[in-house]
Each structure stands twice: as structure tokens, then as C-alpha cells.
């Protein structure tokens, strides 16, 4: 599904990602954990196609294709989804209208007929139940006046509607109270399938109590310094990131076996 080889990324001449290796197979859920400033958000933004970063080395293959050559919209149309850490507020653009435009862009790309407003509203009303948002959110401008938790649930609603093959969730759990966390995590978990892959980027281990990862990677200072099974997340929760920082014997190689 996704294969990242020795990815180097800089911003304004400063190297943020210093050689990332990662391989995610179809159906797998990988968690990338790391403290603030380790390069987590840069990683997710680069995968989605943000052009403010300079890729100075390495490769990203998605379904065998060079992902880095595709525009952000092409990546989306090919099945890559990014749930934003800070979802953007769009005044004046109705949430339903926005999502319908996204779905129709996808349908057009696949040579399918566009969905009309009536059918789309029926579809979206079903989906919104899964994230337990009130239907009134459908008629409000995208994310305008939404609380932090409502914004994240809206991201998950978009994911459930667009049905990506690879979902990158950037700190989707941050700023959520325990109830919202549970709703978001259940939304993600219900969406797992043998064809679909996930990259869950998080600071904390707690979301992984609801969605068990296949692999956990620790990102520190732009490098994956340790990879392991679900237990690694628990270990980090107990010992903190400092434990790895000072453990010089740990292999600096995050590539999956």
C-alpha cells in the first residue's frame, strides 16, 4: 500500500525529516508516536502533498506509484485521506455542499455519474449518525463555530464519506474529551478492512486503547528510532519519550521487517 524509503524533508533549509523508512501493507494500521517537534505533522502534510516543504531525498510509493509526483487533489482522488490536526474553517461554504463537491470530484475522476443534492443528503444523513453529530452541522459553514471535538468528528465524517484506501490521521485524538475520543476511535475502528490502511499519528497512547495498531513507530528528531508491536505504545505511556532518547543502544532503524 505505502512504502517510504529514506525520506528527507526540509523547511527553509532546515532538515525536519532525516531519513524515514516505513512500509504499510493493505489492512494494516500503523501508529507513529512522538513528542512535539519530532516531525509528526510535517510527515503527514508531506504525504498529503503540502508544497511548503522541500523533499530533499527519498521515495514514497503508493500502490506502486510515485506519490510525490501527484498533486494533493490527485492523491485524494487516488484514495489518500488526511485528517487534519487543525481542520480549516471555511466561512460561507456549507458543510454538505463542500462534501458533495468532494464526492462529485471523486465520481468524475472515476468516470461515474455525479450524485445529486437529494441523494447526497440522504447518504450524508446516514454517515453523520456514525460520528454522533447533530444534522444541523450539515447546514453550517465548514467547521465554523465547531468545538475542537466537533471539528475532529467532522474530519472522520469526511473520511467515512470519501472512503479512502489510505487514511492518515494527524493527532485526531488531541483536544478530545473521553466521550469524543471514544466516538472518533469507534468511527475509525468500524472503518477498518483488509483493503484499507491507516497511519495514525499521535502524541499519546490513549487512542490506541480503542484501535489496536499492527505496528508502532517512535519518531524522534526526524527519525524513526524504534518500531515494535502494540506493547511499545504501552511502554512509552509508562516511561515517556525520555526513555528512548537516552537509550543509545536502541537501533535507529524504523523499517518494517
Amino acid at each position, binding site marked *: 500500500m505505502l512504502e517510504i524509503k529514506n525520506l528527507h524533508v526540509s523547511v527553509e533549509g532546515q532538515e525536519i525529516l532525516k531519513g524515514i523508512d516505513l512500509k504499510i501493507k493493505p489492512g494494516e494500521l500503523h501508529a507513529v508516536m512522538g513528542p512535539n517537534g519530532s516531525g509528526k505533522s510535517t510527515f503527514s502534510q508531506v504525504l498529503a*502533498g503540502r508544497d511548503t516543504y522541500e523533499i530533499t531525498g527519498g521515495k514514497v510509493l503508493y500502490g506502486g506509484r510515485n506519490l510525490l509526483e501527484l498533486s494533493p487533489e490527485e492523491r485524494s482522488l487516488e484514495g489518500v485521506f488526511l485528517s487534519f490536526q487543525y481542520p480549516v*474553517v471555511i466561512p460561507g461554504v456549507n458543510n454538505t455542499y463542500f462534501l458533495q463537491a468532494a464526492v462529485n470530484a471523486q465520481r468524475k475522476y472515476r468516470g461515474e455519474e455525479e450524485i445529486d443534492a437529494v441523494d447526497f443528503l440522504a447518504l450524508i444523513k446516514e454517515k453523520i449518525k456514525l460520528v454522533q453529530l447533530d444534522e444541523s452541522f450539515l447546514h453550517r459553514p465548514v467547521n465554523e463555530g465547531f468545538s475542537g471535538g466537533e471539528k475532529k468528528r467532522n474530519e472522520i465524517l469526511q473520511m467515512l464519506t470519501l472512503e479512502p484506501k489510505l487514511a492518515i490521521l494527524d493527532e485526531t485524538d488531541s483536544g478530545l474529551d473521553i466521550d469524543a475520543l471514544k466516538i472518533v476511535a469507534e468511527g475509525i475502528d468500524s472503518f477498518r478492512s483488509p483493503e484499507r490502511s491507516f497511519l495514525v499519528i499521535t502524541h499519546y497512547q490513549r487512542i490506541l486503547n480503542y484501535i489496536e495498531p499492527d505496528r508502532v513507530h517512535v519518531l524522534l528528531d526526524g527519525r524513526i528510532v524504534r518500531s515494535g508491536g502494540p506493547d511499545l505504545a504501552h511502554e512509552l505511556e509508562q516511561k515517556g519519550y525520555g526513555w528512548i532518547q537516552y537509550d543509545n543502544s536502541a537501533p535507529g532503524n524504523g523499517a518494517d521487517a
Partner: protein
Amino acid sequence: MITVHLVTARMPSGPQTMPSTATTVDQYHAQFERLIGGDLSSQPEDLLQLRYAAMDRFEQLGFPTTQQEEWRGTSVDSIARTDFQLLDDSDLADQPPETFCLDDELVGSQVVLVNGRFAPHLTALEELPAGVVIQGLADVLAAEPGLVLPHLGRVADFDEQAFVALNTAFLMDGIFIHVPESLHAQRPIHVIHLSAIGEMPGQSHPRTLVVAAANSRLTVVEHYAGNGTGPAFTNAVTEIVSQKSAGVDYVRVQREPENTTHIATIQTHQEADSRVALHTFTTSGGLVRNDVNATLRGPGAEVLMNGLYLVRDHQHVDNHTRIDHVAPHCTSNENYKGILDGHGRAIFNGRIVVHPDAQKTNAVQSNRNLMLSDQALVNTNPQLEIYADDVKCAHGSTVGQIDEETLFYFRTRGIDRDTAQNLLVDGFAREIIRQIAAESVRISVQNLVSDWLTDGHIASGPDRDKLGVSITDHE
């Protein structure tokens, strides 16, 4: 979506023009003499006196120059230099009404004026409710002057406004709308002002008087359109009287051709507990100046003043607004938005004056501008003058562009840049449009804005560093 700088700004000094020459004013005087020497027997003495006074005042004032504070950013030199001839509607007498129908929805509720003259043969009105008057001003002045004279020329003051003086001097006809006490007019009344000129420069001075008697309600839409090939000068004045507890929704749509210079003055007179909404939409025209003024004379009066200007190519659109809070306990809510593309140039100058007796005033004013091109330029200048001590007033203006992060968000959802930009611009405009109460009017205006977007060659990716925004601190 927008990079917001909260600013108050004032205009830089623009190029200065010479005061209009005596010769130009003399030409208007000569046209005035010819006109007033013609068939004037039908006009009441009071009106003739008003017109003479207006002409005198215009001759004293002359055309405004950019040395005057209120006209610093907008030069009307091109009007002063051009020999515009007064137009009549003789060429259009045999055209069918459909020619001028702007929207099928309007059939049955449209009044047409050609070059400022009421055109009964083009007007198609369904039967009106009892007591509602929709007639040419000349006809009403001849038949029932008492309905008109207490208001005509008394709402829009020409003492300091040269273009109002000029319009009043040339006041031959126009449209009069009157809704009697406690009547709620259900259908919006559409007034279509057509400037029909040939190849030679032509001028017209359309005049509108709307009187809503106590407790009445009505919606009036004024469309300004044109079909000429030569340069046109439209100098329109609309007076709106909203008596005690009356409600008037007024929508103005300006869509004349590029070679039109459009000067407009809208002035309200609002009595106690009246509510007036003024929506001004400018989507075309070469040089446009709108002066929209509301005077809140009775306690509890309210005005909603909204505007949307869509400016591209080399258009120049200047919106000057003034709200006078004369009585206490009045509310004003002003929201103007601009979308600028190409080499478009816009000015917003909004002034709120809270007079000494206007305690408990509540006034909010906002001007927001969305720049789609690095060559476009906007000057925004919100002003508050407060002479009372117990008031709530807020104002602010912003100039911004569609930011890359917002566009990126759309793109990660598979929506390409152009589509995203159109959705954002449409959304920005929609916030103004959705405040029009009458649904049919709202849809019609929305279509107009969508057409503007579709026609457009909206520039992509405004350059962050080169935006043509000129802002200095408010003094």
C-alpha cells in the same frame, strides 16, 4: 479562509484634478434653460422653484474634484470633460416589453423607466392592492401633487451634494411608489431603469421616491441596466421615506455596461420604530460611485445597510455610506464586502455619526475585502463620529486573500484549485446575499453573482507580497 489584518485605513492622496471649468457647468446651464423653457406647465410651482434652486446650487458647487475630502479617490473629470446629451425615450416607443425583461420571474411586477422617463408601454403590473400607487412622477405631479411634494427633494439634500443638485435640476419624471398605512405589499416591486443611448455620449437622471406609510411593508428592487454603445452617464437619486413602524426592503442592482459612469445617491428618512434594509450590489460599470445614506430620525428606528461590489478589469467602484443617528435607541448594522480581481479598484468610506441626543445607539459597521489579483487595489476607511456618551459602536475593516492552507484543505478532499476558489468566493458573497428577505430577489441576485464568477477569468494564486493594498493608520 482569509488572511485578516484588522485595520482602519484612510486613502492616500490620489492624483489631483483641476476644478471643473466654468464652460462645462455653462453647458449644463444651457441644457437646463432649454429644458425648463419647454413644456413645463404641468409642473407645480413648488417643484419649479426647487429645480431652479438646485440648478443654482449646482452652478455654485460645480463637479466635485479630488481635492475635496469626499472625492479624494474618485475623479469625475471624465464626466466634466464629456459633452453628454440629455436622452429621451423616443427611440424605444415601439419595442415590446419583453425586450427589457431581465428575468421571467419579474413578469407582472415590473416597472420600466427609459432614460429616467416612466415607460408605461413597457411596464407590466398585475392589479395592485387598494391604495398602492406605482406611477410615473410626472403623472402624479400633474394629478395628485400633494402625495409627492411633501417628500420630493426634501429627503435627499442637494446643498452639499453636487450630483443630487444636478439630478434635481433635471427632474422631469421618475417613479413614485406609495404604500398606504398598514398595508403589507406581498410581491416585490421591480423597477428597471434602462439607459438607452445611441453612439453619442448620453446622460440621464433617474429619480425614485418611495413612501411607506405607517405600519406598512414593501420590497423594492431597482435594477440599472443599459444597452447603449456610446459612453453613458447615469446620475440616479432615490429617496426613501419610512414612516412610523414601516418596513422597507430595498435592493439595488447595478449592471450597466462598461462604458457607463454611474453616480447614485440613496437617502432614507426614517421615523420611529421603522426598519429599512438597503442592499447595494454592483457587478459592472466602468466608474461607479454609490452614496448610500440613512437618517434615523425617530427613536427605535433601525437600518440594515449591506453592500457587495464585484470589481474586475479596470473598473472603479466607490461606496460612500453615511448613517446619521439623530434619535436615541436606534440601531444600525452595516456590512459591505468587496471581491476584487484584475486591475479593479474599490473604495469603501463608511461614516457613522452619532448625534448628541442619540443615546443608547447601537451601531456596527464592517467592511471586508477579498483580493483575487495582485494588481487590484482597495482603500477602506470606516469612520465613527460620536457626540453622545451612552452608545455601543464597533467598526472594522479587513483586506485579505484566499489563503493557501484553505486551498490545500479543499485539494486534500479532491477539489481542484479553481473549483475551490470559486466555492470560496461564492461563499464570501453569499453572506451578504442571504440577508435579502424576499426569496425570489435573493435567487435572482445569487444568479447574477454566479454569472459574474463564471464569466470571470479569476486570477489564480494571488501573490502574498505584491497585493495592491494601500493602508495607513487611521488618524
